[in-house]
Every structure is written in structure tokens, then in C-alpha cells.
């Protein structure tokens, strides 16, 4: 029963970046995103500097660019929006290859595109170098409200429960000769979805009861050793600090 292959975001590795404590990385990533968002959209060179910082992190973490690109595809809708903006926005217009484009729209599109891309790249970098469980523990350590981390933890678990339940039910059908190759044989599969929901719900209930039995009162306990040295913080925050400096320089 192999659930848990859903966390494909994480890229297993053993680099200085991978080894940093999760909560430290979350803070660093958050600061970098703020710096990127705060950068004035006309300060083009600053975005290049942000990207250079990220490339530096990727080299240190030894994660291949192809893997990053594959995981950044979720950004596609934003790219589409950014490309369309110059055509539809109002205000002063400019001519490009015979097309009339809005200058404001161009800048707005660029703004969304570059900040969105950098934001996604930062998040993907965090996700690739930190396992889900560490991210959750990191959030808890940063005193993100218990309810949020509990829900996130349970979501990860329930995804596994549902996937495992679905796999068991499919095996049970196939083992009894069900071979859904033709459309008219899809009935059992469809009925299975309803059963799957019910079974996942009931199992979820029992998992919850078992959690109560072990003293669960509604918030996840903090697990792991929480000592993080000043040096670790300094190392992890260096790129974020650089990003903030660049952003500030962009206003000069």
C-alpha cells in the first residue's frame, strides 16, 4: 500500500540548503517574496539581481533547473494574464510591430509576470528543499495558529487515506475479475466513488477517535528539537537581506 507519492514537490537531497531548519527557511522565503513584491516595477536590474540570488541558492542546493521548471508550471495562468494585459489596459499607448499596446498595460503585465515568476520560484525552491512534514512543523514552530497547521497536517494525511482506500478498493475489484476496459463496465468504478467517499469519511472518523485516545485536544504538539543557532539564522537570512537591499536600491 504505497500512498504518499503525492508529495512530488520535494526534491530529495543533502545540501546546506536542505539541512537548514524549516522554520528558518520559511522566514527567509517570506522575506524574499516581500522584497520582490516591494521592488518598483521600473527597476529592471533589481529583478535580475533577485534572480541571481535564486540561482546562487539553486547551485548551493544542487537542484537541476529542469526540475525547477517542471514544478513552476502552476504559474502558467498568471503568465497568460500578464501577456494579455497590454492589449486590454487603458491609458497612453505605444506601437510595437504594428500593434497598439498600452504602456501602462505593458508595465502592469511585466510587473505581474516578473513578480509572479520570482514568487513562484522562491516557493518552489522552499518546497523542493524541505519535506512537507518539516514545513508543517516549521509553521507550528513559527506560531502560525494551531488550527491552520492542524488542518494542513490532516489534509496531507487524508490525501493519503483516500488514495490508499481507493487503491485497496480497486485491488479488491480487480482481484475479483473486474477489468474495466470497456465503457459499459465502468459502473462498478463509478459506484466505487460513492463508497470511497463514505469509507474515507468513516476512516477519517476512526483516525480522529484514535487521536483523541492519545490525548489530542485540538492542536498539534510541537515535535523535534527547537534549538536554532544565531549562525544558522544569519546564513539563511543572508540572501533575503540581500534581496531587501536590492529592492531598496531600486527606489534610489
Amino acid at each position, binding site marked *: 500500500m504505497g500512498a*504518499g507519492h503525492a508529495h512530488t514537490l520535494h526534491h530529495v537531497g543533502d545540501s546546506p540548503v536542505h539541512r537548514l531548519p524549516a522554520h528558518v527557511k520559511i522566514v527567509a522565503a517570506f522575506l524574499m517574496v516581500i522584497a520582490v513584491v516591494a521592488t518598483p516595477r521600473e527597476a529592471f536590474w533589481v529583478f535580475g539581481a533577485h534572480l541571481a540570488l535564486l540561482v546562487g541558492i539553486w547551485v548551493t542546493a544542487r537542484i537541476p533547473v529542469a526540475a525547477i521548471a517542471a514544478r513552476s508550471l502552476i504559474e502558467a495562468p498568471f503568465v497568460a494574464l500578464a501577456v494579455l494585459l497590454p492589449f486590454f489596459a487603458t491609458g497612453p499607448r505605444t506601437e510595437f510591430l504594428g500593434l497598439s499596446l498600452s504602456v501602462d498595460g505593458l508595465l502592469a503585465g511585466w510587473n505581474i509576470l516578473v513578480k509572479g515568476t520570482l514568487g513562484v520560484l522562491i516557493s518552489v525552491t522552499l518546497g523542493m528543499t524541505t519535506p512537507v512534514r518539516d514545513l508543517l512543523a516549521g509553521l507550528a514552530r513559527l506560531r502560525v495558529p494551531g488550527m491552520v497547521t492542524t488542518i494542513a497536517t490532516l489534509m*496531507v494525511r487524508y490525501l493519503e487515506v483516500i488514495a*490508499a482506500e481507493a487503491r485497496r478498493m480497486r485491488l479488491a475489484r480487480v482481484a475479483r475479475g473486474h477489468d474495466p476496459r470497456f465503457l459499459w463496465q465502468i459502473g462498478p468504478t463509478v459506484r466505487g466513488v460513492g463508497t470511497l467517499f463514505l469509507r474515507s469519511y468513516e476512516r477519517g472518523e*476512526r483516525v480522529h*477517535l484514535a487521536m483523541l*485516545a*492519545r*490525548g489530542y485536544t485540538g492542536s498539534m*504538539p510541537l515535535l523535534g528539537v527547537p534549538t536554532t543557532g544565531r549562525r544558522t539564522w544569519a546564513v539563511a537570512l543572508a540572501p533575503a537581506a540581500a534581496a531587501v537591499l536590492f529592492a531598496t536600491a531600486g527606489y534610489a
Partner: protein
Amino acid sequence: MTPSLEVEGLAFAYPDGHQALFGVDLRIEQGERVALLGPNGAGKTTLVLHLNGVHRAGAGTVRVGGLEVAKPHLQEIRRRVGVVFQDPDDQLFMPTVGDDVAFGPANFGVTEPELSLRVKQALGAVGMGEHADRSPMHLSGGQRRRVALATVLACDPEILVLDEPSSNLDPVARRELAEVLLGLDRTMLMVTHDLPYALQLCPRSVVIDEGVVVADGPTRDLLADPAFLAAHRLELPFGFSV
């Protein structure tokens, strides 16, 4: 001395109306090891889930060390009574084995470095020390059962309640589990269909059938009565005699 567990006139019906317990009486003294026997559907699991307040008595009372199982004392009751569920998949839910074992003691206020020590000892006791960083979902059925047991051992409860602990275990794991349990020196209630296991571990047995206690006495005497065993769908394995 106050008994470890005291069940009086316990009756219970599931929300769908199915009545599973019809007035159960049971008293277990401190340090006793008792086997809970009975056919499928007798109400064993239902009874067990009353001992830590997962089910609330429809009628009757349950007391743990003199403390009634009721809302205001639930956390204290659950600290005292550790229940290993029948299905390990209900028990295990954290992303790694180590986190799952740490979950219970952390809820009861155990902190580092004691917490890591407890996890290590509990996993060591069930021979799963090397698997702390794996996902429980990726373990075999017997390995999951052992981890489920470790999650409760780590809580260090006064009373250990086990719902069919030996099912799915290979013969060596089954014997090693017996050694672990014998070494614990706790009050213990063990649900099982494995009669030789009951004989090995528990001097006393309680048999329930159709929601009532039908026998309570020395395990050896109960198992030596073929007519009684047959009447309650109990059977010694082939070639086994007491």
C-alpha cells in the same frame, strides 16, 4: 485497594440503533493481566472503546482507578488508559513513524529530550527502531501493528488495553511481543482470538458473547472445558491442549 478498572451494568447501542452491549460487569485489580475472549461481533471492541471514553456509556458506569469516565476527566482517563486499536491504519496518521510515536506523549506534555528518548525506547521495544523516519503507510501489515503498539507504549499508560495485538504478526514477532508485554508489569486487558496467547499472557480470562459476560475465571480452567468453548464459538488450534 481501588480496582484499576471497574465496569458496572454497561449497556450501549450504536447510533444506527444496533445494541452491542447489554449490561456488562467487569472488575480488574491493579497489575492484573486479563484476556477478553469471545466470537466475532460479541462486543469486545465496543467494550474496549468505553474504557477511555471514545464511546459514552448508554447506561451503567466505567471507572478507571476510581475516576469515572466522563467529560471533565477525559484527558486524565486517556493518560491512564492506553488503547491499541484493532486496525493500525486507524491509529497511524502522522507523516513518519517517529512523529506518530511522539504524538501521544507530546499531547500529554512530555518535552525534549525526554520525548526522543520515549520514542526510541518504544520503537526499540517492538523492534522497529530502524524505521523511525519512514512513512507508516509504507510499512507491512505486521510492521504497522508493531508501530501502533509503540505509539501507545510511548505514552507509558498505567493500564494497557490491546485489541487483538497478535493478529498479522509473524511467529517471532508474536513471541517477542509476548516478552515485551510480560516485561511491562502493568494492568493489562487484551482482546484476542489467539487462545494459546491468552493462556501464555493472562492468568485470568473474561468471555463475552452477544453483549454480556458469559464467563470469568482462570484462563486454564476455561480453555479446559470443550463444551463451554464450543458454545461460544471458541476453539483451540489443531493439536493444542491444556
